[in-house]
């Protein structure tokens, strides 16, 4: 029994309510954070930082946002990319029009703007449920995409509709290298993930889950459904908004509204479902799966380079990607996070089978 819970007694409810009540988990997390904050920027090259880790972290954040809404509050949404777009354009405009604001405040405000827009599109959720709501959130997706392209003001009238934010400067220090940007993204994502974790295990999180699991019962014990759902929309959109701002500022440097199209919304939804609906960890696992898998498949494909035609290879990659999604759902319909949890439970019992 390498990994065990038995024999570790908690003597106070406070200890029992710590994020990771089991010390092994805590140590593992500290080790992981130390690795991510210190070892990675020192060791990884620009390719890993700039094209794998940064987008992975940003999309994890967006997935986290959607997971709050869909996983915790049970409101299926296909419009998360639109809220990313709102965040990106808002941050751009704050930076452009109020240059004296510090960068992090721009991001915060961008998140708040996204949250406000999220609330507007969340109002119908009081009456509309399930897939009906999902399709209805497409209204947000298409409307916001259209509005951002249509009204030049949002993109400062650039002919191409593309926005290019200024370099990021924090306290006079300009972030230029990929490592700088990575650290910024990692910092923001870590803090927001911690806040999300706190939130979902507090009264607010319980209210969300209650509404998700059985809204009638939730109302009967005094939870205000509309208020709870709108809060979920707001928080979720906030996270997506910040993710969108980071996408524009820290990852690509320039974006247009099409960077946040329907496909992006779906991509984020995949992450949530594959990773684990209603799991913070799952958002990260899902993002890793969806971001890394196609790249991995592409690299694997290169091993066959020459032997197989490139278009065959590309299509095979797509097929494998789809098949793996199905495979993982069959293995564990509740996502990678649950798979991880079961593995831990088994470890706990190891070497006994049950």
């Amino acid at each position, binding site marked *: 029994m390498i990994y065990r819970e038995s024999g570790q007694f908690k003597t106070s*409810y*406070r200890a029992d*309510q710590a994020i990771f009540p089991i010390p092994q988990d805590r140590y593992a997390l500290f080790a992981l954070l130390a690795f991510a904050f210190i070892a990675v920027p020192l060791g990884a090259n620009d390719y890993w930082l700039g094209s794998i880790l940064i987008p992975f972290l940003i999309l994890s954040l967006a997935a986290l946002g959607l997971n709050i809404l869909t996983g915790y509050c049970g409101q299926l949404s296909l419009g998360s990319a639109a809220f990313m777009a709102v965040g990106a354009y808002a941050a751009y405009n704050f930076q452009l029009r109020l240059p004296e604001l510090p960068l992090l405040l721009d991001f915060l405000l961008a998140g708040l703007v996204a949250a406000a827009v999220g609330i507007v599109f969340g109002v119908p959720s009081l009456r509309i449920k399930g897939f009906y709501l999902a399709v209805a959130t497409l209204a947000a997706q298409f409307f916001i995409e259209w509005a951002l392209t249509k009204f030049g003001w949002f993109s400062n009238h650039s002919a191409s509709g593309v926005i290019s934010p200024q370099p990021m400067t924090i306290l006079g220090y300009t972030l230029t290298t990929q490592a700088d940007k990575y650290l910024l993204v990692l910092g923001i994502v870590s803090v927001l993930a911690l*806040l*999300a974790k*706190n*939130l979902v295990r*507090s*009264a*607010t999180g*319980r*209210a969300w*889950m*209650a509404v*998700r*699991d*059985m809204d*009638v*019962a*939730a*109302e*009967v*014990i*005094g*939870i*205000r*459904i509309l208020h709870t759902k709108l*809060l979920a929309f707001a*928080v979720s959109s906030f996270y997506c908004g910040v993710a969108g701002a980071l996408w524009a500022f820290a990852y690509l440097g320039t974006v247009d509204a099409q960077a946040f199209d329907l496909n992006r919304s779906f991509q984020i939804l995949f992450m949530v479902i594959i990773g684990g609906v*209603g799991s913070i960890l799952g958002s990260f696992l899902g993002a890793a799966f969806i971001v890394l898998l196609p790249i991995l498949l592409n690299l694997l494909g290169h091993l066959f380079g020459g032997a197989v035609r490139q278009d065959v290879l590309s299509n095979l990659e797509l097929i494998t990607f789809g098949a793996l999604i199905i495979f993982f759902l069959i293995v564990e319909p509740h996502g990678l996070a649950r798979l991880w949890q079961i593995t831990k439970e088994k470890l706990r019992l190891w070497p006994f089978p049950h």
Partner: protein
Amino acid sequence: MTATSRNIGSTLLDVRNITLRFGGVKALTDISLAVREHEICSIIGPNGAGKSSMLNVINGVYHPQEGQITYRGVPRRRMKAHEAARQGIARTFQNIALFKGMSVLDNLMTGRNLMMKTSFIQQALRWGAAEREELEHREKVERIIDFLEIQSVRKTPVGRLPYGLQKRVELGRALAAEPSLLLLDEPMAGMNLEEKEDMCRFVLDVNDEFGTTIVLIEHDMGVVMDISDHVVVLDYGKKIGDGAPGEVRNNPEVIAAYLGTSH
């Protein structure tokens, strides 16, 4: 102990001339009943008589077309379920309505949500007041867990629990809200004798210790006759009997419609 020896007070809940229709179906027709403070009132009746509907009307899940409900002296016709909760009405459901994806502990903690006052931002930071509050309520909930003897399943997702335990958890969730009026919809269905006895004990203790008024729907006549102070009988949405258990048991109309001769 008999009913009179406890200090049953004045009328807490007064239901007047309630009529509830679903399209063509009349679930409740002109029903009136009164529940006094601290008493245990049972509603019985054949299947489909409208018992559950009655509870749904009392706590605002259904909105009757006619009639008026006076609770603690405040009359009203419609109200939202969460408003009812705010006024101290809690309940359990016939088909268990727990939050399946959450642990037992979380289910119970949710029952206390109404009393948690910190803002979501404080909760996100989990700082000072938010953490103190969380711990305070946790202690209260642990007391209920002890009371209901469900310590061992505290962290188990409720979906995995056997039926009987789920019923107990549901009672716990209702109790967590520290209600003054507790509505129980068939809390003992699907239990064996021993478990029913336990459940009766819980109900009686709640009633005794916290002075909670209880409205109970139950099909086990043994339980109903033993523990209630007052029994209301419904049939086809109409009230056909109302009174002390002894009276109701001997009411010929009730015997014909519900109890049957075998009893």
